[in-house]
């Protein structure tokens, strides 16, 4: 066994698993207490979870030898031990705070409405019941309840277990997630839904496993925002996972925004499954955290499916952002677009790896990958690597990646028109990011993201004026 495989972190994950055994105290509870009778999980699910754990332990923690972890070292993490992050009740996260975030992202609206459109998960535990009853056409349930009453549904979403190395944290989430939410969107929703993920801990060395499943029924349409924030000085290691399953002709605009504190470590796995003619527009925005690993695993399973993924990766201070996209065209006439804008200042590092796989039989598929990086400091670093794996003929695949500094010709052009240097530089930075921002249809969310983004850029006062 390599040292990494025998690490303190791995042992502590295994101990968490053992503590999940029937009769053991409920995880994350402030005080030990037996689970309610009947709260035990069905065998089908616990069998699946055990296989997930074994597979994760077999893979171990990633090292630089793993293809998708080449630029991100988890060595500091390996020597730490982790226990379950506390449950929501222990932390006193208040609805008033949730409301504030909700209004910032969804726009100002009456409290009741904002509350209905906002779902709060603290360390992965849903704060339910959420207000009187969410909008019509929407069904929200805790994953633990669904697991008890309809285990097959949960198993169906968790299967098949992945074996790709880049999906190991998803395996661990599958094994150890205690709760989460299951959302079913049944028609076209008029208002967006905000999932506020709050990470909060009373001490270092805790871990949370938020799990979200979003099913969009055939023909239904919605906007879902997942916003990851931190409450208080400490945050758990967050190992979150979200599945977006879109039925035939369904439409979804999905945002995931990472905005935790500067020391937070976050591994997030986003799975997207698209059926015939379904369309998903996905925004990944890294604006916070110390180490953020954002994985997108998308499958265009039926003809006509379309994915438009856009990433805004902001390296600030000594932040480390590692974004990995794997997009699989598994059927004919599928379309994918991947656009990433990476910007790095201070001593930050931003990585964008994207891979497109076109299966045999997925003819007339069309994919584009584009990553542009902008370095704002000599000690920052941006790495981007587009990859293509094509197993069929008759496809249209394009990719490109460029990284550079602010263009001195553009800068001089603006100076020669009388603009001062700071304004000219800021304008160029803003222009660089505008592509991704303008694609966001939620103006309040866009405004909030823009403001926070600007705050983290050099010369932020000037940039405020361009909004």
């Amino acid at each position: 066994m390599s040292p990494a495989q025998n690490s303190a972190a791995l042992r502590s994950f295994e101990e968490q698993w053992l503590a999940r055994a029937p009769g053991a105290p409920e995880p994350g509870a402030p005080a030990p207490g037996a689970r309610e009778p009947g709260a035990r999980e069905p065998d089908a699910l616990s069998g699946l979870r055990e296989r997930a754990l074994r597979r994760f332990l077999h893979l171990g923690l990633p090292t630089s030898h793993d293809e998708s972890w080449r630029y991100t070292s988890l060595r500091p993490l390996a020597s730490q031990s982790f226990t379950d992050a506390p449950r929501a009740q222990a932390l006193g996260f208040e609805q008033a705070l949730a409301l504030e975030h909700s209004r910032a992202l969804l726009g100002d609206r009456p409290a009741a409405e904002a509350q209905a459109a906002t779902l709060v998960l603290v360390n992965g535990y849903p704060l339910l019941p959420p207000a009187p009853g969410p909008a019509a056409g929407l069904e929200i349930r805790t994953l633990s309840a669904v697991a008890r009453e309809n285990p097959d549904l949960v198993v169906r979403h968790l299967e098949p277990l992945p074996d790709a190395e880049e999906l190991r944290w998803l395996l661990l989430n599958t094994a150890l997630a205690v709760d989460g939410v299951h959302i079913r969107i049944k028609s076209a929703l008029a208002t967006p839904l905000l999932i506020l993920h709050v990470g909060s801990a009373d001490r270092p060395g805790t871990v949370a496993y938020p799990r979200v499943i979003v099913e969009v029924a055939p023909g239904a349409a919605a906007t879902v925002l997942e916003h990851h924030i931190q409450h208080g000085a400490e945050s758990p290691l967050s190992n979150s996972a979200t599945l977006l399953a879109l039925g035939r002709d369904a439409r979804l605009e999905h945002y995931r925004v990472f905005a935790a504190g500067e020391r937070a470590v976050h591994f997030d796995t986003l799975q997207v499954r698209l059926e015939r003619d379904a369309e998903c527009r996905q925004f990944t925005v890294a604006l916070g955290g110390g180490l953020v690993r954002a994985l997108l695993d998308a499958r265009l399973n039926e003809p006509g499916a379309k994915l438009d993924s856009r990433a805004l990766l902001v390296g600030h201070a000594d932040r480390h952002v590692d974004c990995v996209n794997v997009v699989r065209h598994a059927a004919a006439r599928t379309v994918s677009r991947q656009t990433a804008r990476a910007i790095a200042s201070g001593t930050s590092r931003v990585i964008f790896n994207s891979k497109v796989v076109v299966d045999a039989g997925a003819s007339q598929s069309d994919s584009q990958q584009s990553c542009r990086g902008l370095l704002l400091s000599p000690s920052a670093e941006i790495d981007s690597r587009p990859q293509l794996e094509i197993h069929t003929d008759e496809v249209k695949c394009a990719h490109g990646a460029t990284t550079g500094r602010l263009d001195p010709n553009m800068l001089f052009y603006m100076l020669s028109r009388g603009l001062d240097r700071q304004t000219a530089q800021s304008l160029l930075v803003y222009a660089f990011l505008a592509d991704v921002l303008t694609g966001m249809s939620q103006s309040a969310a866009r405004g909030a993201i823009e403001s926070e983004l600007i705050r983290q850029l050099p010369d932020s006062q000037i940039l405020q004026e361009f909004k």
Partner: protein
Amino acid sequence: MIPPVRMLLNISDLSARVAGKEILKGVNLKVNAGEVHAIMGPNGSGKSTLAQVLAGREDYEVTGGSVSFEGADLLAMPAEQRARAGLFLGFQYPVEIPGVNNVYLLKAALNAKRKAAGEPEVDAYDFLSLVKQKMKLMQMSETFLTRGVNEGFSGGEKKRNEVLQMLILEPKLAILDETDSGLDIDALKVVAMGVNSLRDPQRAVVLVTHYQRLLDYITPDHVHVLSDGRILKSGDRSLALELERRGYDWVRESRVA
């Protein structure tokens, strides 16, 4: 009564280096208000370098001489300050800046100049009608209002946009670097009309050009031949015509003789 001659620009023994190579080797030139000068010369003679040095490009190193603009030391000012003081460079190759709106840049430029002069910011409505009026003069379509700076413009559109910017900023001294290159005859006439509309006893224009074609439409008061980093010969309009007939070698040879 003859109005007093007011000197705008005085270049004295200017030399400059680009990437370690001496390009300007002692340029002398005086430009008075109300005058139009043409600087002609073969490729590689230093015409564009002179234009860029005057506009304040930092990677062009001045190694000797002096330049005064309305009596002030031009070389001591950073590029943006030169622009605000009333110097304008029309680029030979205008830069595309996707994502930065054309009109936004224009407005920011005008306000920067007004601010430096202690004037209030331009009223948004007045500004837009001014831009539209000048665009009409330059025969530009209104779609330019919503596009990024020079983004996707054709060569001719870029040059018109340079002249549009000049008309809005109303510089005291406009240096137009090969604004005529790559233009068809119709576009050339439009550009010339734009430049002529700015002619004024208080202003001056320096046209940097390779061919005398532009001078059929903008009549210069003085013509200079720049060759190998020096002004070899100066004269009036007839010098340009003679150059056209006899080529640049004639100037170089007559200099040696």
